[in-house]
């Protein structure tokens, strides 16, 4: 039976020193003389060094063996290293070591009374060293072992070092951890860099897309603008022609025919309105719509709107209430546009309210110098998800009331754009099923870009010249226009207006110039957009010829003239007449004013 005294673990190089010190201390406590103490300590040093350098970790057991005779002090060094291939060659001294003097095992064997080595490749090595106990022993070995253990605890020279070592280990561990973190950071950083590169690439792509979208939007606006003009011309013709029919200028219509023609006119008017809305949107988008501010009061505005909407309230269940504004300052902004927005909002409210009231209020914000109009209804309300959609073009929400009410889906988007044009905003509060409140917030003084140069009004004339153009001494009027319908409508109007004159038509610019030479008309009505020689060229030629330069020329066009166009026309024309005028029911009166004889 063996009696354990102490077990040590060899883990670090310093442990070799510790184990040999322990070996010396224990042998001293057992009662070995100085020489033997040194021998034992040296042997332990040799064996533990071997174990440490070949296996890394090992355990050292200090024990008594009381079975052997005589009893011995045993030191067992056991590791789980690769083992020793050829124990015999080492024991016979044929092996040469790189670390010691090749004396480790052989020397230890010589230093001790008992030496045993057990080893096999892959199974680790166990070395047992034994020293016969001194004879003058008094105590029982068990008690002896206990006593030695106690004494060793007292000596404990290792505490400080142990502590330092532990701290060192901790430091190493934290260092390892830091290193690991650093590695993590590096990899994270790398990942981030990659992501960043991706983001940059995406960003560039987005940029490209945005640019592309912008171009598309511009094309769309241009298309809308152009198409609307193209639509307007035939619409004008239809309107004018149906007017002629209704006025029974060319013979009586029977009742059914009259009804049908009136439907035609109504539908055309609706379509015309739609085209106008589209055109307005296109203009706002192209930045062509200009603000013409003027001073006006809210009372004025409200009373106009009141008159306008009274006839539209057909049901008895809906009240239209304009809350009288009190002590509000006058506005200086574009009255037509404000009124257009409010009209839109009110007509929407009427459309979607079956009973209850529609209340229009105004409120002045002192600190921001803005005015907030609100149009509150008790209608169907708007679901949360539709609140942004309604401001998008052609968006209409599916509902019973919606289906009943007609609309283009352009009212709100146009209003919103107009509000923005005036430096304001338009938004909605709504509870589904309870009603909605639309708010229009605009500054009381319009501070945007200076008052518009592009006239929205369709007609403007250079007053002096048109009056100068004055009297026709002969009796010919020439119409130069490539569109037969336009010529026909204008001729009808002119025939009514100047019954004494004969109206002659030319089908294009070249024809017009030839006819001018022949008949020398008193007045020329000239279309601008024509194939071959266009209106601008014709005008230039007429003005360049001394024979024709005095003939007043009226430009008749459906085109909205740009500043460039007007520059090109210069002082040439005696006046400009919009084709829109010709299709309105009061064309005669307007023209009578414009073209004075």
């Amino acid at each position, binding site marked *: 039976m063996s009696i354990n005294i102490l077990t040590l673990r060899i883990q670090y190089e310093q442990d070799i020193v510790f184990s040999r010190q322990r070996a*010396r201390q224990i042998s001293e406590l057992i009662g070995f003389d100085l020489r033997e103490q040194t021998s034992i300590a040296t042997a332990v*040093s040799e064996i533990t060094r071997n174990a440490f350098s070949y296996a890394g970790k090992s355990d050292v057991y200090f024990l008594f063996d009381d079975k052997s005779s005589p009893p011995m002090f045993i030191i067992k060094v056991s590791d789980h290293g690769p083992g020793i291939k050829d124990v015999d060659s080492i024991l016979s001294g044929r092996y040469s070591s790189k670390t010691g003097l090749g004396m*480790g095992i052989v*020397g230890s064997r010589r230093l001790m009374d008992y030496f045993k080595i057990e080893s096999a490749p892959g199974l680790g090595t166990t070395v047992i060293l034994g020293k016969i106990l001194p004879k003058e022993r008094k105590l029982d070995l068990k008690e002896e072992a206990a006593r030695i253990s106690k004494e060793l605890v007292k000596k404990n020279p290792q505490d400080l070092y142990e502590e330092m070592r532990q701290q060192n280990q901790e430091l190493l561990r934290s260092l390892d951890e830091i290193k690991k973190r650093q590695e993590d950071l590096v990899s994270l950083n790398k990942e981030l860099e990659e992501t960043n590169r991706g983001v940059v690439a995406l960003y560039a792509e987005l940029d490209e897309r945005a640019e592309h979208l912008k171009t598309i939007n511009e094309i769309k606006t241009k298309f809308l603008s152009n198409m609307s003009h193209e639509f307007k011309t035939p619409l004008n013709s239809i309107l004018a022609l149906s007017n002629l029919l209704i006025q029974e200028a060319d013979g009586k219509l029977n009742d059914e025919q009259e009804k049908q023609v009136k439907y035609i006119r109504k539908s055309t008017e609706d379509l015309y309105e739609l085209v106008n809305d589209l055109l307005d949107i296109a203009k706002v988008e192209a930045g062509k719509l200009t603000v013409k501010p003027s001073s006006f009061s809210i009372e004025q505005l409200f009373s106009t709107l009141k008159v306008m909407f009274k006839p539209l309230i057909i049901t008895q269940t809906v009240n239209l209430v304009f809350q009288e504004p009190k002590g509000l300052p006058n506005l200086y902004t574009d009255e037509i546009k404000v009124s257009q927005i409010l009209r839109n909002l009110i007509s929407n409210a009427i459309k979607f309210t079956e009973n209850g009231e529609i209340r229009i209020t105004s409120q002045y914000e002192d600190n921001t110098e803005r005015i907030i109009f609100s149009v509150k209804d008790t209608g169907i309300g708007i679901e949360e998800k539709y609140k942004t959609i309604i401001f998008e073009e052609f968006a209409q929400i599916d509902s019973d009331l919606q289906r009943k009410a007609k609309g283009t889906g352009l009212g709100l988007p146009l209003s919103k754009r107009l509000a923005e044009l005036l430096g304001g905003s338009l938004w909605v509060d709504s509870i589904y099923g309870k009603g909605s409140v639309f708010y229009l917030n605009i500054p009381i003084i319009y501070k945007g870009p200076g008052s518009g140069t592009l006239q929205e009004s369709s007609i403007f004339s250079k007053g002096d010249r048109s009056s100068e153009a004055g009297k026709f001494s002969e009796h010919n009027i020439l119409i130069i226009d490539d569109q037969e319908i336009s010529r026909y409508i204008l001729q009808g109007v002119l025939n009514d207006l100047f019954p004494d004159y004969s109206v002659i038509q030319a089908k294009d610019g070249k024809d017009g110039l030839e006819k001018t030479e022949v008949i020398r008309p008193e007045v020329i009505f000239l279309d601008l957009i024509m194939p071959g020689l266009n209106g601008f060229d014709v005008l230039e030629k007429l003005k360049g010829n001394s024979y024709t330069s005095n003939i007043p020329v009226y430009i008749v066009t459906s085109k909205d003239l740009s500043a460039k166009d007007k520059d090109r026309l210069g002082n040439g024309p005696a006046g400009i007449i919009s084709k829109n005028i010709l299709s309105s029911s009061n064309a005669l009166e307007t023209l009578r004013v414009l073209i004075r004889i």
Partner: protein
Amino acid sequence: MEKIPILKMGKYLLVTIQVDMHDRLAMSLQDDLTEKIVLYNARGVLIDISSLEIVDSFIGRMLSNIASMSRILDAETVVVGMRPAVAITMVELGLDMKGVKTALNVDMGMKMLDIFTGKNDEQEKLNDHSEE
């Protein structure tokens, strides 16, 4: 990192090993000492091991290495103060420290160094005269 102090004493270096050295410490002493020999142009090294309770094969080899290296650097090494028990153990262990000169104590060691280096000094003097 702990170190074994190396003191300069005239043309000699004095090393007193007072702790039970672990192997790395022994290696670093070997390196430090060779550096110092060159730095101070030392002619001799005295290593006092009177505090050492054991000298195992590793420390033995280290002492032997120091002696060889010093000799190549033109310095003599004397190990002094070896305990009797250590001496006995070394013999039993079979350690033969080739080329390491030993002396009983520091006094004897110094005298030994004087003798070894004295010859060289005389040689130097002779060389100096011949140059004049």
